[in-house]
């Protein structure tokens, strides 16, 4: 592999944080493969962002076209393919954000590239790239190779690569004329839809009791609400609870839901899917109760109880009430 490319992700001309993680991964790969690192920036206005990126990347390829501002997958793919078409063998690194999820598979077909998504590790074995990702409810790791692919696309799980500014001298910025023709787009961005606001704001809560699929199919939500109130906290949840209409969307912690930064997070029947954990910031005390001793949540929690929630939660609330009285 001669080239490592990183696709910078922006929304309305603001770089998204995951771009820096992708640069960290790209930098590591370029070092191990002895390849050149370049960053590709696609936006309606590139100047400021390109300069920021050039501080961390030896080369920035920048395309300016307002049709790229919302990161519409069709436009991004149409812009990327001509840029990468004549670059020889390469690895393209992107964050596994909700915008990239929309474009990575189609892009891999357009580029005739091998694709591995949601990778949390990248390794080079005997000059060959390998990716590490998770399967089967996040319980199994898989080492994935790309056969003899000359073009490889990988997307990275958020939080897997930590970025430290390299403080190198500024790289070169190469502006490329927009490859987007006048073809009409079959996929059109209309507008943003703001998050629904609710009567609780879990984002600002210090104490969170959060429930997941493991509370069962017909749970008594009152039991969990009551525990949260006794603790002086709020009730939150993972995605399956919202899907079943047991709580409104603004209670959902996760990458698609709300980001929280509490001091204490009590996870009840939550398996610990990455999309959920991605929404918990600021390293709170994390305690978990789950009946599956192998649940991934126990790998990230500091304290855990393996057991039956229906039995444990009322007792726990009693014990907390007793402490509050004393």
């Amino acid at each position, binding site marked *: 592999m001669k080239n490592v490319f990183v696709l910078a992700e922006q929304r309305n001309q603001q770089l998204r944080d995951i771009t820096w993680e992708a640069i960290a991964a790209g930098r590591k790969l370029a070092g191990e493969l002895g390849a050149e690192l370049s960053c590709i920036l696609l936006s309606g206005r590139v100047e400021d962002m390109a300069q920021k990126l050039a501080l961390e990347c030896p080369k920035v390829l920048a395309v300016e076209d307002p049709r790229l501002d919302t990161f519409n997958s069709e436009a991004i793919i149409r812009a990327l393919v001509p840029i990468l078409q004549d670059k020889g063998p390469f690895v393209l690194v992107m964050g596994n954000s909700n915008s990239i999820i929309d474009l990575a598979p189609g892009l891999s077909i357009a580029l005739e590239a091998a694709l591995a998504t949601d990778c949390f590790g990248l390794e080079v074995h005997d000059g060959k790239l390998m990716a590490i990702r998770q399967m*089967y409810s996040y319980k199994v790791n898989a080492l994935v190779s790309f056969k003899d692919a000359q073009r490889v696309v990988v997307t990275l799980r958020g939080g897997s690569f930590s970025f430290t500014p390299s403080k190198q001298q500024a790289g070169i910025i190469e502006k490329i004329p927009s490859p987007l023709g006048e073809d009409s787009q079959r*996929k059109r961005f*209309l507008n943003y839809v703001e998050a629904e606001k609710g009567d609780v704001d879990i984002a600002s809560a210090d104490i969170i009791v959060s429930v997941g699929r493991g509370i069962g199919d017909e749970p008594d939500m009152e039991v969990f609400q009551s525990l949260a109130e006794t603790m002086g906290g709020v009730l939150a949840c993972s995605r399956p609870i919202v899907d079943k209409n047991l709580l409104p969307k603004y209670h959902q912690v996760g990458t698609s839901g709300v980001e929280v930064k509490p001091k204490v997070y009590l996870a009840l029947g939550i398996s610990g899917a990455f999309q959920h954990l991605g929404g918990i910031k600021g390293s709170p005390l994390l305690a978990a109760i789950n009946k599956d001793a192998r649940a991934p949540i126990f790998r990230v929690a500091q304290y855990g109880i393996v057991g039956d929630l229906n039995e444990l939660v009322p007792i726990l609330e009693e014990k907390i009430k007793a402490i509050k009285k004393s």
Partner: protein
Amino acid sequence: MNIVVCIKWTPDTSEADLTLESGGKDIKKDDLDFDVNDWDRFAIEEAVQIKEKMGGSVSVITVAPDDAEEMLRESLARGADQAFHLWDDAFEGSDGYAVASILAKFIRDRPYDLILTGTLADDDGGGQVGGMLAAMLNIPSSTLVSKIQIQGTTINFNRELEGGLGEAIEMDLPALVSVATGLNEPRFVSIRAVRKVSSVEIPMLDLGEIGIDESKVGYDGSRIQIEKVYLPPEGEGAEIIKGNPEEAAARLAEILREKGGIG
């Protein structure tokens, strides 16, 4: 409106103890329960609801071994009109790209206005097949989709971004959308409804009948390859609080108090 729904047959690993196959390239699946991928249940429901509103037909397709017929039959009971079961031993080991190639070959010459899939599969979490299939068929696609509305020759929907933010998108039909969980409430299927479709024939098509070359499927047709699977290192992990429920709860309450978890 002719709707095609692509669904996957996946093992339920959420609460199972997993062990590795002797070759170390997959988990042992003999003792696991298989069912339709959770995300795909929402795709089936959405297809049936669109058909009930607008007319047309719903075809359900899977690339999966024999046992998956159960899932196809249940889809018929949910309101799908036709089911197609694509399988050949040569398909074993197919990655997302090879599965998309099989589906594209089969769907290409059939009438369709809309293709629905789930965004992710619970087993490999790849999220690849939908977008690849659309690219192979040269139609627009999107993922994490909810609030679907069809107006004439376009489809409008919301897709999830981060932090509760969404974006409203419009695409020309024919198109492929990969749905988010929770966009509808999959209906309950009665035993009676399943019994009603028990005699419906579900054709199983092999490599030759689909007309795809052997080099395009299975391990040969895949672009990525699993070299090995392994259980993640235990690491430090949580301190598991032992004791009967009374003791464990008391200890946890004490920890919560110490750490500021009782406000």
